[in-house]
């Protein structure tokens, strides 16, 4: 009997196997379409009158100010480690004088924004997802709707705007603290004045390094906010759904950050040559 069942199930699997990728693709495209329409809804609600300034400020405080210690420590360590890792190679070339410039450019262009975005996707993205999901499964969102408040405006728009505005600021902090960490890293090997270090850093940094990096952090912030709120807003299956929302919002937001980064570097190279 057991054997028969085994065969049965195997038959079932072999029948369904070719369909599994398509089923995944189908759910993927469905997810993309839902996120897109959720984003459109966000912009529609954003430009309606009655913006929740106070709530946005509160969310900004949570996303921005509360993430600062984490971002600062990460930025500092990234600057320090990058310097210490590149120093032996550059020493072989006899190009140690380029160390500040190299670390400065790589921090400002890439590492500062991306590390900040990833940290915030982990910290704020999961927080937003879990918070909204628990509100959804305990039917608080429905209650808000009944009481006449626009839950989308109050919960989604404020959080997305807050994360869009705060990630760039955090990235600037990460850059600055990372460069300071690099200064300490350079001083582990030799002795260089802070002024010379800053001059050497900005010797190679151009506007085409700063602005694209700054602009892409807005998109990083948007991705973190929109994915977190989408996953939370559409949570299902009770308490289990809360964990799933928090988890998937981090995963998808991180992935989106890398995709946006890839697109940003393509667009930047298009303009710079």
């Amino acid at each position, binding site marked *: 009997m057991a054997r028969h069942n085994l065969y049965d199930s195997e038959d079932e699997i072999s029948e369904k196997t070719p369909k599994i990728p398509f089923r995944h693709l189908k759910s993927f495209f469905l997810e993309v379409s839902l996120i897109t329409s959720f984003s459109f809804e966000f912009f529609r609600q954003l430009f309606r009158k009655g913006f929740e300034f106070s709530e946005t400020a509160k969310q900004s405080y949570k996303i921005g*100010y509360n993430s600062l210690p984490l971002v600062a420590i990460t930025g500092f360590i990234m600057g320090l480690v990058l310097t210490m890792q590149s120093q032996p190679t550059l020493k072989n070339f006899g190009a140690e004088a380029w160390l500040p410039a190299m670390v400065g450019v790589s921090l*400002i262009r890439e590492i500062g924004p991306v590390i900040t975005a990833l940290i915030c996707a982990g910290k704020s993205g999961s927080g937003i997802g879990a918070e909204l999901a628990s509100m959804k499964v305990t039917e608080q969102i429905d209650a808000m709707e009944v009481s006449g408040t626009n839950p989308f405006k109050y919960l989604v728009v404020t959080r997305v705007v807050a994360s869009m505005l705060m990630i760039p*600021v955090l990235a*600037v902090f990460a*850059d*600055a603290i990372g460069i300071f960490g690099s200064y300490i890293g350079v001083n582990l090997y030799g002795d260089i004045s802070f002024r010379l270090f800053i001059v050497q850093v900005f010797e190679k*940094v151009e*506007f085409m390094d700063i602005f694209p990096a700054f602009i892409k952090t807005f998109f990083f912030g948007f991705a973190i906010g929109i994915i977190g709120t989408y996953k939370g807003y559409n949570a299902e299956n009770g308490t289990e759904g809360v964990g799933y929302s928090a988890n998937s919002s981090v995963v998808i937001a991180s992935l989106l950050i890398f995709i946006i980064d890839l697109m940003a570097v393509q667009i930047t190279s298009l303009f710079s040559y």
Partner: protein
Amino acid sequence: MKTQTGNKLKLGVFVTLGILLFIIGIYFVGKKQNLFDTTFGLRAVFKDVSGLQPGNNVRFAGINVGIIDNITILNDTSVRVDMQIQQDVKKFIKSDSRAVIGSEGIMGNKILIITPGSSGRIVKSNAFIATTAPINMDDILKNLKTTIENAAVITEDFSKITQSISSGKGTVGKLFMDSSFAKDVDQTVTNVKKGTQGFQENMEAAKSNILLRGFFRKKEKAKQEQQKENEAAKDSTSKTKKRRK
């Protein structure tokens, strides 16, 4: 409510600091690109800019004083380079200054170097200055090739010469390789020694000759007188010194 105001204050400080850092960064980059300084234009026409790009530095007396603003191709043999130079170095750039394209080290960026001129007149804004063609790496290699070819010919000749020397051919070969030459030299030295000895004897004989004796005596007397005078002078100076003491 109180904590909320506190939070808002913290958020305000946080955002202000962030924006401030951003502005400082922009200022540093802008300062480098002369965005916030008053500048004046200078132009130069090159045949070949060898990879110079807009944004490269312009140097005068080893200091970065400006950037390349624009590079436009005029025709097949001339490229116009527009520079933006800081206004405060204008008074040092003379009208006969020259522009040369150089590079920052072997792997570094290209730079435009303005060499100082010697005329009294200061350069005008948007004026064209003379240029010196940059040294092309290909030309260097070409020259190097002829040098190497010449060196090959020279070393070949030299090896022929050393060969003939070692086999004792020619004058130099004989000098180095023939032992009879050394013997001849030895003989010559002996002859010279004998000759000088004979000459000395002849001189002694001349001194005792009647005709020449007077001449030699006069010479001796003059010598003695000179000596006496010297001694007298010495005495007088020593006396004066003693008196002073």
